[in-house]
């Protein structure tokens, strides 16, 4: 048996196709390839925050749902601790649910408006048998709120609409604290809360990583946040990974033309540093159905070569643990 270091989470050649429209498959059915042959791994050695960066339509939320088992891949497999997620869900569903959790993007719709907010915590206590009596359950719930800097007396008995977006998301962190998972998938958790409240949430998340030795797959479109929380970074463009590496390096020295476009388009809150060049009209794409071959970025790329339209580049390993899928860096033989 080889001493292969087991990764915590691994996606192998994941492709996800969605069919939309049409009745019994006869008329008007279109397919959308949300993810095309995506592969990456999160190391299991140390707790790590991997940020997955992509714009809308890049497929990043689809990855979140696939990892959580809310969707099934069309092709490929997802391995958690070396075992297919489908097997986990079939044979050890509750263990998987305990170890892999999620924070959703919308702090409002994630709460069932019919119930009080603490129910999201009690549900977990009940389903995973974390307490043997109702008083123990109440203690656990209060403790997890306090651990995230929330005051139970301010929140218990309230309904979701009585709390602010920031409080609701932090309560979701309390839920994570309660469950102590090994991996948490965070799908744009701060994009819908105010800027002044975001840092509290992000700092809490970083704190959880340390305290619980928990890894995180942080999904976002905001490169600033990805840079702030991420150790590693993966850049997703229209369903394909175009670049990976350490977050600092990817943002400081982007290799792939798409990453370069993203980094240069970030608005900087300093009026002295405005954007130097302006975008041309070619940068705005007309929505069209993706070509089967060729690089996903070829229609917008300033460095487009003939080969880019014909063939799809695969991720090439470059120096210092960095990868980029671009023919500018050669071709994988």
């Amino acid at each position: 048996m080889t001493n292969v270091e087991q990764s915590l989470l691994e996606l192998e050649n994941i492709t996800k196709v969605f069919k939309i429209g049409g009745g019994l498959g006869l008329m008007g059915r279109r397919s959308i390839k949300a993810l095309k042959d995506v592969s990456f791994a999160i190391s299991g050695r140390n707790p790590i925050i991997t940020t997955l960066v992509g714009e809308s339509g890049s497929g990043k939320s689809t990855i979140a749902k696939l990892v959580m088992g809310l969707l099934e891949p069309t092709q490929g497999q997802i391995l958690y601790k070396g075992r297919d997620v489908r097997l986990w869900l079939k044979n050890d569903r509750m263990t998987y649910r305990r170890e892999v959790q999620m924070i959703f993007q919308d702090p409002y719709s994630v709460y069932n408006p019919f119930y009080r907010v603490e129910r999201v915590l009690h549900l977990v206590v009940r389903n995973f048998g974390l307490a043997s009596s109702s008083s123990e359950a109440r203690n656990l719930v209060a403790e997890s709120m306090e651990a995230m800097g929330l005051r139970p007396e301010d929140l218990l008995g309230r309904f979701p609409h009585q709390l602010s977006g920031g409080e609701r998301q932090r309560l979701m962190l309390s839920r994570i604290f309660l469950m102590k998972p090994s991996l948490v998938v965070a799908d744009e958790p701060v994009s819908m809360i105010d800027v002044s409240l975001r840092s509290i949430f992000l700092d809490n998340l970083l704190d959880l990583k340390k305290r619980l030795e928990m890894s995180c797959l942080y999904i976002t479109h905001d490169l600033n946040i990805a840079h702030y929380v991420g150790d590693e970074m993966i850049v997703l463009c229209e369903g394909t990974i175009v670049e990976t590496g350490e977050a600092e390096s990817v943002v400081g020295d982007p290799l792939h033309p798409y990453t370069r476009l993203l980094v240069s388009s970030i608005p900087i809150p300093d009026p002295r540093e405005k954007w130097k060049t302006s975008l041309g009209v070619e940068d705005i794409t007309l929505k069209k159905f993706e070509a089967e071959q060729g690089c996903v970025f070829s229609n917008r790329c300033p460095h487009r070569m003939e080969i880019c339209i014909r063939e799809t580049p695969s991720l090439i390993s470059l120096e210092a643990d960095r990868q980029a899928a671009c023919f500018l860096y050669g071709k994988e033989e």
Partner: protein
Amino acid sequence: MDFGGKLITSTLRSLARFARGFLTYMRLNTKTMVGSVAFFSLIALAALEPSINYILLSGHSPTEMGLFERTLLPSFEHPLGTDATGRDLLSLVLAGLRFSMIIAVISGSVATLVAVSVAFLAGYKGGIYDHILRSVTDTILVIPIYPIAAIAAAYVRRIDLFTMSMFLAVLTWPWAARTIRAQILTLKEMVYVDLAKISGLSDYGIMFREILPNLLPFIVVGFGNALMGSLFIETGLRLIGLGPTEIMTLGMLVNLLINWGFLSLGRYSPIVVTTFLLVLIFVSVNLLNIGLDEVFNPRLKKVTGL
């Protein structure tokens, strides 16, 4: 046994949750308040009717003929007078209310139960269940129910209360099923359903604890519509002289009173009272439904809070 105990406590807890949800919605709006108060008063009256009539008639049945003198005018002993067969009309009206309410509530409840089950199976499970059930629902919807009901009433001479309610339920369930199914389709895509799934909740748990509570207003409205639909069919048939004569509903009574010539003789009070009670049933349920709609569609309300 402990399992039995757990089942009872969890059922009671669910009932308590539903009661709380129901009261929350009921209290939100004057129309729902008035409607539900009126409706539940009618139910109370109908439920108390046997006792009331027991006292008024010293143990005799209100449909027993020849107890009193025939066609008496209203007086202190007979506030609405007596009919052509010697029955006290006040007792008869109360009995009529009871029968009407029983039919309305039973057929409404059964129709709603069937509608909700069908809606869940079709909406939540989807796939082949959805296709089959939708075809069934749409087929029944297309069938003209009044002619069917009339034909059935004409052919069947003797029928009991329960069977009649069942028949009306079969005719009225598809309407609610459609609306509720559509709502379930929306609700099952809610993010909190995803959260429940990853928190380990089973399919049934999700249906009953996540989706059902948010369906309550639609279920109540569906129930109201089914109730009114059934009563409407029944009353309509009565007014053209169809239907089992031994079941003395309000509609039946109106028909009898008109046939006995009360209208042409100027003896309005029994007809007015009977009609008023019938109308009150419809109005109270309608107020409830409109009020609930207002609560969930706030633009109907002119100023916040009213």
